[in-house]
């Protein structure tokens, strides 16, 4: 049904266009005749026809230039920079492309596969050696006294990381280049226990416990330098802030502690009492350090077989039950 309808609707259209063409044609021809200046052709030259018969000659193309290349030529001069593969300039019988089994792989001429892949023909080992030699004049010797990593860490504790970008666009800017990261080891900072605790609380997740590293990433300013300054400002502010002791910090209760401290807990009272029970005089016996650390480990790390066994050993030892 559909087909039929379509055909029917097309036919009148086609007829109409034919008719229009036909009716206009004679008029167009007439106008051309009126406009044309009639030429008196004395020598009977067939101007237009002669020009048409002149077929453009195909140009003489020289053979590909790899045929002229000497065997011992300087390849770096032939292919000095990165560019798309060209079969006429590369004197290698390279082949590339997928073919069914038992068919020959296409050669290098008119082979788009070879042009697609990036080539490193401009970076052959002799060329790299030559370029390195040329760049040596701009290199300075490695700084003395910074040979080992420990020395480097000691003298340059802060790492500064940023990125530069190059792209084929009219603009040379890339917003990502503003991001600045600074890294340093926490142990490099002079912090007492309180300050360290406070520093860690302030810095939050930016501290990596495994490597003891602090990472500060700044990207809120538009420029790299500004972000760098801001990062250094943050580091300074954090350092000084963690060293100040506020008044309200003394009112910290046991419930506020983030870890178990034996000295603030009932265990200290009880164990001291147990040890001093029935002893005369003021001199008190303190529980041994081994016991203290065992209790703290048990409470901070949780109960496991190792910690419980250690705890048991230390209690038995302390009470002299063995």
């Amino acid at each position: 049904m559909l087909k039929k309808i379509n055909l029917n609707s097309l036919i009148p259209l086609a007829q109409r266009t034919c008719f229009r063409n036909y009716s206009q044609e004679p008029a167009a021809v007439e106008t051309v005749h009126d406009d044309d200046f009639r030429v008196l052709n004395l020598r009977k030259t067939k101007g237009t026809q002669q020009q048409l018969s002149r077929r453009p000659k195909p140009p003489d193309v020289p053979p590909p230039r790899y045929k002229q290349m000497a065997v011992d030529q300087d390849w770096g001069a032939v292919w000095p920079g990165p560019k798309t593969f060209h079969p006429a300039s590369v004197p290698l019988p390279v082949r590339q492309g997928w073919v069914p089994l038992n068919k020959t792989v296409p050669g290098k001429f008119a082979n788009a596969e070879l042009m697609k892949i990036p080539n490193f023909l401009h970076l052959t080992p002799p060329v790299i050696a030559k370029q390195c030699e040329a760049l040596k004049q701009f290199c300075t010797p490695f700084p003395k006294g910074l040979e080992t990593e420990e020395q480097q860490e000691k003298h340059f504790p802060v790492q500064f990381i940023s990125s530069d970008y190059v792209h084929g666009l009219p603009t040379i800017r890339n917003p990502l280049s503003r991001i600045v990261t600074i890294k340093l080891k926490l142990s490099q900072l002079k912090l007492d226990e309180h300050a360290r605790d406070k520093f860690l609380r302030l810095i939050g997740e930016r501290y990596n416990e495994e490597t003891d590293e602090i990472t500060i990433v700044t990207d809120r300013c538009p420029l790299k330098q500004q972000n760098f300054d801001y990062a250094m400002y943050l580091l300074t502010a954090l350092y000084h802030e963690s060293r100040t002791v506020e008044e309200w910090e003394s009112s910290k209760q046991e419930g506020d502690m983030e870890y178990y401290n034996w000295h603030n807990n009932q265990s200290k009272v009880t164990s001291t009492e147990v040890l001093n029970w029935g002893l005369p005089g003021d001199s008190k016996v303190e529980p041994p350090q081994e016991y203290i650390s065992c209790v703290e480990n048990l409470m901070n790390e949780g109960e496991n077989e190792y910690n419980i066994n250690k705890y048991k050993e230390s209690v038995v030892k302390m009470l002299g039950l063995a």
Partner: protein
Amino acid sequence: MQHLRRSVSSISYLNRSSLSRCTRFFATSTELEEKVEIPNYIQRSPTTILRALSQTVGFDPTAAHYKYHDDPYLIPLSNVGKRSFALAMESGRKSAKFIRQQHSNLFQHREADPPIEAFLPTKMYTIDSQVEISDLTTSIEHSHVSDAILVYALLKKNNVELTNDVKQSLLELLCFYNCEEPLEEDMIEERWFRQNQRLKERNRKTWKDNDTAEQLYYEIEPKTPQTYACIIRGMCKYYQVEKAYAIFQDCLANNIKLDVDCFNSILNVVRFIKESADLRWSVMLDLLKTMKEKGVSPNLGTLNACLNSISEMGSKNAKDYAIQIMTEFKNIGIEPSLASYYHILHTFCKDRGPVSHVLVDILNEIEGKEFEMRDIKDTMFFVTAMDVCRNHLYDLNLAKRVDAFLHFGENYNLIGDSYKESIYYRNYFTLLVQAEPFDKFMADYYHILVPHVYIPEPSVMEEILKAVEVTGAIDNIPLLWSHMICFEQISRDNLLALIVRIMLQNKPDLTIKTQENLKETFSHIAWDIWSKIEEKNELRSKPVVWTGKLLGDILRIICTSEDIDRASVIMEKLLNDQQKILGESDYIAMEDYVQLCITKKQPSKAIQCLQYCTEIGFNESKNLAKTICKGFTLDENHTRRVVRYAGESVIQEIEKEMQEESAAKNVTQ
């Protein structure tokens, strides 16, 4: 987008002054302070590394200049091709600029950051546009001379008051360019290939009298010394010498302090001020003395101007003057540039003068030095030096020294333009081919420089072919012929005659390995000559005129390879187009052809040849007829034709001879 660099740097609290207060942050072991020695950064500009890397790239004789595409279809192989390929590329750049300017409203998007001024359309000014002083200053800054003139006129119409500084800078622009729009700076190829109009216009007044520059000069009040200097220098540059000298004299009379460049430009045009050599020399001396009185210290420009004037003075004492000037300037510590040496060469090595070896002394002085462009005529040195080597001294070793000096360091930048370069190499090649052993010339120079650095002109090619003829190094002929096709020299009669003569006179020696296939190749070349010229004659309005001699020679070469089809095509041409062919072929070619017909058993073709010979009127055509009759067993038809062309007597003579022969045989039996 490509990640260029991820820089990780560590900040030392010891070295970074801005962080010195951080010292107390860090836990340091104070007991043993190790000293860290960080070497200083080696200063470099943004392009230093690129330059250093580009130094590692050598010369590749198989490659075209890097401005062309590295593709067999797009590498130009003739001088015309080089020129048109490079200019076509630049023409595209020009038309893009034109479109951008024509539809500037469509090119207002500013994607680039920072914006690139050169890629944006410039402001267009018409008679009705509203202009400000800033428009004038930017036009002057960008050297848009016609824009500057228009804007200046508009400002004047609107009665805008201009400061003298702006007027002065406009005057400087107009004087420098003579109120003409200069060729844009980035049109490198056009500048390289442009026929140097300057040379043609040398010694001719091109200054535009009473144009904007002069009007402006009269308008500026009060005039500063710079104003005078500017107009004098402009007029001298474009050889309006009379006016310039008048203003100059006024300035001297009114005690206005002129700068050294102003004196230089007057010194440069001394030859227009006075007529005879002695008067010119005295004017020069006066000028130099005035400079001394006024306390103006001379510079390189003074030296070059003096030497230029001396070289064109036409005095017998010119050489002495030049030496005087050179020593004088050497004493005050002015290092001459290449232009100074060019003027010296020009003075000493005249065409009709005695031979002078001043070039040797110059080379001893400057060899191993790197030169920069310091004078506009610095580019004339190399071409003149090579010209002296070839035409004046005829000294190959000296030419090689000049060439080595040209390739030393960055000196090649001073070769000038394509025209000078080709003249330089034309002289060098001619000298080499004449004085160097031919094999060495081909291996060390021809194969390396041709065609990508230099394409021999027809005259040089003729010299090379002559050298081939003398040395008999015919294995080079195929290469030279293919180069002649590439360089579009096949319509040169003298070259064609020469190459055909060489092929005829030097029979390939089959015992030499390189010449084994040469017989076939020569025949191909001969056929190639024929077909290329025929092809050209069909297309060109001005055809090459065949000479009978050339055609005969080609026929002979083809006959050696026993190719009867091709030979007969040429024979037909000889026979049918006798009116169009100049002169006649050698009879020996006809003999060769008939012999070929006999071996190939083609009697009708041999008779055609006989027809040609009788029509030309060779005396030997009877002998030819005899050869034909003996070579073939002719049928009746053929015999009738032979009789028609050679006459009845021939047949009778042959019969007689045959009878005599058989009689002789009988006698011997």
